């Protein structure tokens, strides 16, 4: 009634609406600092410093930090820690790192190493021979479940009287001692408890650990006092992104500079795009294989196993699944391995006729081949694809296969307990190191007790023989013997070597890789 009254409800509503619109506009306006307007074109000019944004598939697990169990861990180890020696990617020749020189005793049971005297931990404490002893003993402790634990435990004596030199004594000659020293990071004894809790990772490496939010993020900053000279990057931000698809999207959206875990096909596609680089790292290989339980009545006949080996279309797997980032193999060894034998490696080339003949022969002898279960981890798509190719291949030679995808946890449990009912598909590693490392450490190969339940005194003898020889002086004939045993037994049917890959945007340069399969960011720089 009186026009002076201000609170007409409709007007009040309008005012509220107007305020909301204004607020939203404000948000939009302040959003000029867009989350994605990173540089989309590179000028090619080198940029000083800068933070590298990395996408990793899996997070670190502090209690399992020495097990190569995730790409996040790999990045942490190579960035924060140094090892005593380094293998170059393509050879098994130790190169100096924290150790400047070394000498192996005649009988191969003693190793003396000279250590650098200008190295400090991130905590400021100088690096000494005691730290080497501590690191090796840590690895020998079963709690850390290090895969080379047996090798580390075989080191029985430590002479640390000189701060900058150490002499190690072995229980027996260790042909793979340098493998151990390449893999073993030198850790700080004072902060071991914090390491276990994930609160501190103290090493001597090019980057210092800064923070970790589990399941999400890891950050590192540059170590200005690094003994090789300070790295070019200011720091590293690692985002944990378990979905490969999402990693690629974020790389394409310029939210990430480096991705470690895209799918093979994505790497292939990215490789064709000039805005990205895709790296295939030869020298840090792993192997995908078909395992057989030799106690399964059908698989106990070696002819059936050999038939399966001949029926595997390895080239197709490499071409269509691995998109060329692999090599078809019959034996695990890569080309530079001392055990590599080109002719033996071609033993089981794709030959359906031969395979069919073998199966028919076995069947004629009364071997019943029922539907065989083929177990594989359901999480990674590569296993599923390979399994389906294997299934199709085996169908052609009259072996029916039932796919049995299981969770990784259960697959691993069956691997350990040797409980696979028939066939399985998994990966193994270590063939790119000294062959004995594979033969005595890798679970599927362990001559004493393996997942295939394959027991053969000849095989066992051949494996032991290559292990207990002096490093670097193993008789090549012994490797030939081992290869013969592997091919003859055919309990583990190799499919292909897999090359690790990663992709970067075009502004990332000089990304490296260790033989352990870890990205090396020391030399890496960005361009504008």
């Amino acid at each position: 009634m009186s026009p002076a009254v201000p609170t007409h409800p409709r007007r009040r509503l309008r005012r509220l609406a107007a305020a909301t619109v204004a607020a939203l506009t404000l948000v939009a306006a302040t959003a000029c600092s867009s989350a994605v307007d990173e540089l989309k074109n590179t000028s090619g000019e080198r940029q000083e410093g800068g933070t590298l944004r990395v996408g990793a598939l899996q997070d670190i697990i502090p209690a399992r930090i020495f097990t190569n169990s995730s790409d996040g861990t790999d990045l942490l180890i190579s960035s924060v820690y140094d090892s005593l020696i380094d293998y170059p990617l393509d050879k098994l020749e130790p190169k100096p790192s924290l150790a400047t020189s070394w000498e192996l005793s005649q009988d191969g049971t003693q190793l003396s190493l000279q250590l650098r005297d200008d190295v400090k931990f991130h905590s400021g404490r100088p690096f000494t021979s005691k730290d080497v002893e501590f690191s090796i003993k840590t690895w020998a402790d079963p709690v850390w479940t290090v895969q080379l634990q047996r090798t580390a435990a075989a080191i029985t004596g430590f002479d640390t009287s000189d701060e900058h030199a150490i002499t190690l004594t072995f229980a027996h000659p260790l042909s793979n001692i340098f493998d151990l020293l390449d893999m073993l990071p030198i850790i700080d004894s004072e902060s071991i408890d914090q390491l276990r809790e994930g609160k501190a990772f103290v090493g001597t490496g090019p980057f210092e650990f800064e923070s970790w939010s589990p399941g999400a993020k890891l950050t590192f900053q540059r170590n200005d006092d690094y003994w090789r000279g300070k790295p070019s990057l200011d720091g590293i931000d690692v985002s944990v992104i378990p979905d490969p698809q999402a990693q690629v999207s974020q790389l394409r959206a310029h939210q990430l500079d480096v991705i470690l875990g895209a799918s093979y096909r994505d790497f292939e596609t990215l490789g064709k795009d000039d805005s990205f680089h895709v790296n295939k790292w030869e020298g840090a290989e792993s192997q995908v294989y078909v395992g057989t339980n030799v106690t399964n009545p059908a698989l106990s006949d070696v002819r059936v196993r050999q038939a399966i080996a001949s029926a595997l279309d390895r080239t197709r797997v490499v071409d269509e699944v691995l998109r060329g980032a692999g090599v078809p193999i019959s034996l695990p060894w890569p080309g530079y391995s001392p055990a590599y034998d080109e002719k033996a490696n071609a033993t089981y080339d794709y030959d359906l006729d031969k395979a069919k003949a073998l199966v028919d022969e076995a069947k004629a002898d009364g071997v019943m081949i029922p539907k065989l279960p083929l177990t594989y981890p359901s999480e990674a798509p590569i296993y599923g694809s390979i399994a389906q190719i294997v299934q199709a291949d085996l169908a052609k030679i009259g072996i029916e296969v039932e796919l049995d995808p299981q969770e990784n946890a259960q697959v691993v449990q069956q691997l350990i307990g040797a409980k696979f009912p028939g066939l399985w598909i998994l990966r193994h590693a270590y063939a790119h190191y000294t062959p004995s490392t594979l033969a005595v450490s890798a679970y599927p190969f362990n001559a004493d007790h393996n997942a295939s339940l394959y027991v053969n005194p000849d095989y066992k003898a051949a494996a032991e023989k290559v292990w207990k020889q002096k490093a670097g002086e193993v008789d090549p004939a012994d490797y030939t013997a081992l290869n013969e045993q592997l091919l003859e037994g055919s309990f583990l049917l190799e499919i292909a070597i897999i090359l690790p890959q990663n992709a970067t945007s075009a502004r990332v340069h000089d990304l490296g890789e260790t033989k352990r399969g870890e990205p090396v960011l020391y030399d890496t720089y960005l361009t504008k």
Partner: protein
Amino acid sequence: MLDLHSTEAVLEIEHLAISFSQPRPAVEDVSVTLHRGEILALVGESGSGKSMTARAVLGLLPPGAKATGSIRYDDEEILGLPEAELNRIRGRRIAMVFQEPQTALNPVRTIGWQLREALRAHGTPSRKAATERAIELLRAVEIPEPERRLAAYPHQLSGGQKQRVVLALALANEPEVLLADEPTTALDVTVQAEILRLLDRIRERTGTAIVLITHNMGVVAEIADRVVVLQAGNVVEEGETRALFADPGEPYTQTLLASVLRLPELDEPVVEARRAQAASQLDHRSVPAVEFRGVHVRYGSSRRGRAFPAIADVSLAVAPGEVVGLVGESGSGKTTLGRLAAGLVPLADGQVLLRGEDVLAAPRSERRHLRRGLAFVHQDPEASLDPRYAVGASIREPLDIHRVGTPAERDARVAELLEAVQLPASYADRRPRELSGGQRQRIALARALALEPALLVADEPTSALDVSVQARVLELFRELQERMGFACLFISHDLAVVHQVADRVAVLRAGQLVEVGPVGSVFSRPAADYPRRLLDAVPVPDPARRGRRVKELAS
């Protein structure tokens, strides 16, 4: 009083027709003129189009309805005005009051808010001014402590008070015309009387013309100046109230008036006509069909000590073949007592004897047998039959439950029962929704009688029906009762209905038995005060007696 209204027309409805997509139009041809300051009654049964006519005035027809003709307010055509124009008239010039005060108010807003909102709709008074006016309005509709009531929510008020608030809302912007659509139908008689008096006083005070839409001839006789009788969308007859009641011209009006049940005059000599003879034949010494012995019923969880008594210490017996009417206002416990007899509510204390046997003390199998002698007819014809079954199946159900006879025999019995309730046997295949309310109530009755019960509990069986239908159903009931001789607890709020069918009547109030006695004597010379007040409040369908009653009520 009559000089208050002039012959000047304030609202003129001419040749109004309203149609839906249905074949039959809701309103066919209605012309009504309302004069300033008069109370005009629009009378008719359901489907007569009386409510639609009123709604059409304010443009409140349901979606899909088309109205043609003319509605003029103050010589301005208002039919078909756009919504915004109508909003200027609604509430300000013409206001409307609806039947259900329970739902006519917004349950989540306070009374004060709703009154202020009504005031705001026509001008924007300050909150303070609006509050003052709201208090004034509440005072005008005679609500005590209006200042405190502003903060109350509708559910905190009684039904009568709610209807007063609805009236206050309608009167907020001083309209010249008030359309009151069955404003008292949902209320107890005593409250109804108060609201009617209030309407009359408002008219006297403000000169507002009132259109009273009702089916209740008693209400019409009580306050209307003129009456318009509608049937099936047409005006049947129109006239001054007294003249129309005294000498209805059209057969329909005659039927309507004849269907109205009348109560005897208070303090007149007791006329125990047919009832008395029937009652004398009853054998009161035999075992009663049902007997309540000091029964108590409590609602709410007694475990947590929050129970309130619905029935307190009631003792009552119904002889075989006797019809006992249970009357009382809402909350009196009459329905609860009926449900108790039917075993539908738990007994807190006391005993219920069916044919002399304590139901609850009886063993399970015996209880089932006792139940066979029981039947229940519900108030709501909509819900009393399972919509999924043909009515024949519903009638058969009691026979099926007790596996009486062969299926063929049961079907024969269904036909027999349909015949008994005067419906063709072919109706057995119909679904409840294909029947009218009265037909459904007949079916419910047939089902109740399927097992030839010794006791029928009828809970307001006719309250949802139109007067003429009600009359026919009551007649049927009476007939069946006489023929089959079942005892009956007949629950009703309508004293005239009870007077019509019952031998004895029990008056309940707040869970307690106030008076029991033969219908004739209780209705003519009630011993207690409460039945007298109840009877007083019933509007008498006779305008000639209006003056006397108003005087009585005023005293």
